[in-house]
């Protein structure tokens, strides 16, 4: 049972354009979501997070949107840069009493390639 799905294994965009990475989840107990970036032979690097009480969180070039009714979130990178080329993982966790917000469930990742 894949609770977090990233249906696009890869995405290619031109430098300067917008990159949109999508993620769907099935576990309604998730109320905390994170995006990580991963370069080869390195561990994932935390990018941005969002709580379910929000529908948008922005940090510089990175914006995460959350649509709870659709159980969908997306990461927008504007403008995209060649250094953004990496695998991006979406992760969800559940907060609250007895919740497992410490245990993240990850998608399989999307390989983003930003072409100069």
């Amino acid at each position, binding site marked *: 049972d894949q609770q977090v799905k990233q249906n696009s294994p890869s995405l290619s965009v031109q430098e300067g354009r917008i990159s949109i990475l999508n993620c769907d989840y099935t576990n309604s107990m998730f109320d905390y979501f994170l995006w990580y970036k991963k370069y080869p032979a390195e561990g*994932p690097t935390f990018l941005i997070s969002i709580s379910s009480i929000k529908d948008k969180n922005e940090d510089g070039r990175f914006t995460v949107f959350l649509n709870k009714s659709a159980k969908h979130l997306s990461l927008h990178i504007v403008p995209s840069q060649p250094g953004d080329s990496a695998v991006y993982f979406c992760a969800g966790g559940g907060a609250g009493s007895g919740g497992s917000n410490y245990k993240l469930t990850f998608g399989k990742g999307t390989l983003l390639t930003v072409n100069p």
Partner: protein
Amino acid sequence: GAGVSQSPSNKVTEKGKDVELRCDPISGHTALYWYRQSLGQGLEFLIYFQGNSAPDKSGLPSDRFSAERTGGSVSTLTIQRTQQEDSAVYLCASSLGRAQPQHFGDGTRLSIL
């Protein structure tokens, strides 16, 4: 500042041998997690430590896997009688606490021959 440190970075061993993987979390982080990533898969939760509380071992795939965290800092993940399906990248992460972003080490790539 220093990030999460894992050793060794690579480990090749024969089937049936025991292996120990080490994780040094970020100083001051009370929460420590182990995940593994098999080829083409997302990260799979293994075990979680929070302060002096009993660890959550719910993600450990079999009783061949165990982990400990000494003095609330360094952690060791031990795999006994390794099998080929144990081949994966084992990642350690730490955070300031629950619901705080987890920061990852670069992982140990384990290959079982």
